């Protein structure tokens, strides 16, 4: 099973069952306080459940960091429409592989989180929208769901309480954009993954036009512990306004890459040095992407930062999805910027012109620069095109492409300048034509 050696500095709340024999099975789950949080929730009025999640200071683990309890409170319980619980398991942010290990090692924790959310908002159906590449995890989840039905935790009249809740997995088919919540809902309904105009937000009009609780896998997985041990206990693990722990996926030029559960606010340099074992081959740290490629890059000297949503934002980047990508002194930042833009251009759904055209042009200009065919004005042009995308698209993909690009150019400008041809520029071999 996919699971790295734990580190002594870890605080294992969501990952506490990782490494246990048969950690996927409901027997292991029940023997280790499984479904205790849900049983507690069954005794509580729905408003109390939401209140407990609010107290926990749990913030959305998909990347935006929106308070989960607040999001749940927006669902109109009195609405005559059916309500839905939808899990975003479309993990696609480059650098991020935490939801995969959560679902693979402890699928019942996710199901229990969904059950508690269903109880809080009065939902009777839940979907786990999961990226198509994770086929083997769909099989794991389907087995866990079947076990939960067999033991009376899903289906009709759950544990004799009269509560009904069905859970289904739903496969995606290859699209980063479908990790954006409104595009995900379009995809769930069998359409192209294009974002919806908001408001209305999914809490009011989500899956099939009905009120919907939609959170990331890790967010739901934190909920059983919050109900079991209390919201205050979870909140106390983190920093003010940033409750609990977070799964950080360390990748890149690091000695011990892996997924580690650390308290919110854990220092980034310490994470790299102590948990990750430092930069590989004793090299010097050059830069870190703190939360997946949508986040502006941090230079080595900016990395003395507490890893919670607010502190990383203050440092000029984002905590994002917790994908920490470490780059050593040998890293070519122009190549990184080109590869990141190729990704966003490929994944732009094409719905909004600034994103569709902006990502294509940025990719072309960056590739031209990387190939040594750039012009001096290209460097400012990259920043200008990026700034023109900011805030001008329906969904955050445009910003996700623009923000890091601005950071690469501003923070590593000399590397871009070094790529400029030394002599009088010759006409570009490949003209900049939109194909």
């Amino acid at each position, binding site marked *: 099973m996919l699971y790295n050696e734990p580190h002594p500095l870890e605080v294992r709340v969501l990952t506490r069952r990782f490494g246990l024999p048969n950690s996927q099975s409901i027997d292991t789950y029940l023997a280790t306080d499984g479904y205790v949080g849900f049983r507690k929730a069954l005794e509580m009025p729905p408003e109390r459940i939401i209140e407990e999640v609010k107290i926990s200071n749990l913030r959305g683990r998909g990347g935006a960091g929106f308070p989960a309890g607040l999001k749940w409170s927006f669902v109109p319980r009195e609405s005559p429409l059916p309500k839905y619980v939808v899990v975003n398991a479309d993990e696609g942010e480059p650098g991020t592989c935490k939801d995969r290990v959560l679902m693979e090692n402890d699928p019942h924790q996710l199901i229990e989180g969904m059950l508690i959310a269903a109880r809080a908002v009065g939902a009777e159906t839940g979907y786990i929208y999961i990226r198509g590449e994770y086929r083997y995890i769909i099989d794991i989840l389907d087995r866990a769901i079947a076990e939960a039905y067999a033991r009376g935790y899903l289906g009709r009249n759950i544990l004799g309480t009269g509560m009904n809740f069905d859970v289904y997995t739903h496969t995606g088919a290859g699209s980063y954009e479908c990790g954006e919540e409104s595009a995900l809902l379009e995809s769930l309904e069998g359409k192209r993954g294009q974002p919806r105009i908001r408001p209305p937000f999914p809490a009011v009009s989500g899956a099939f036009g009905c009120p919907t609780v939609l959170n990331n896998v890790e967010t739901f997985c934190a909920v059983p512990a919050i109900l079991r041990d209390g919201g205050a206990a979870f909140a106390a693990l983190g920093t003010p306004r940033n409750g609990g722990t977070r799964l950080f996926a360390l990748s890149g030029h690091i000695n011990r890459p892996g997924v580690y559960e650390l308290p919110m606010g854990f220092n980034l340099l310490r994470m790299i040095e102590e948990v990750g074992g430092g930069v590989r081959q004793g090299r010097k740290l050059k830069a870190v992407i703190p939360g997946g490629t949508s986040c502006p890059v941090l230079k080595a000297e900016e990395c003395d930062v507490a890893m919670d949503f607010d502190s990383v934002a203050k440092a000029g980047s984002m905590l994002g999805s917790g994908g920490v990508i470490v*780059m050593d002194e040998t890293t070519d930042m122009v190549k990184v910027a080109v590869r990141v833009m190729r990704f966003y251009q490929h994944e732009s759904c094409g719905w909004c012109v600034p994103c569709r055209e902006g990502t294509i042009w940025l990719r072309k200009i960056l590739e031209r620069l990387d190939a040594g065919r750039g012009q001096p004005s290209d460097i400012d042009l990259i920043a200008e095109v990026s700034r023109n995308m900011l805030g001008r698209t329906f969904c955050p993909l445009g910003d996700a492409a623009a923000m890091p690009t601005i950071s690469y150019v501003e923070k590593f400008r000399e590397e871009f300048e070094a790529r400029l041809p030394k002599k009088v520029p010759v006409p570009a071999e490949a003209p900049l034509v939109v194909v």
Partner: protein
Amino acid sequence: MTFSKELEAKFADLVTHYPPGRERAALIPMLLFAQDEVGAVTPEVVEEISRRLRVSPLEIEEVVSYYSMLHKEPRGKYHFQVCTNISCMLLGGMELFEHLKARLGIDNHGVTPDGLFSLEEVECIGACSWAPALQVNYDYHHWVTPEKLDRLIEDLRKVS
């Protein structure tokens, strides 16, 4: 057209997952599962699913062209999907992709003449902490090296 008994059972179950009148929600899973069995989203597959879900073939084409895992042309029996996104790139993902191109004698999206192998450069597959990584069909391979790749190709040739 007809599908296997297993797939028919899967489809029959799938359409019950969604609210009445919203069966179109089954479209993307159905296309992917049908593709797994047939080898591609052929015009016959489109026609059949169009009939079953009462979605026009044009609307299905719209969906197929959007999702990167759906494809209308058959691929090799073993489809290599090499991630070259940042975490993999930093640890040699691009070099692995080039190695495979040379080793299989095909370009991105190419299929070997014997239909055994095909190749695709893909975006992040969620294996960043075990990079560089690739998938052969739905199977993950982590910490891949050129040597491991060569052995993998040999093994796949032998079992075919």
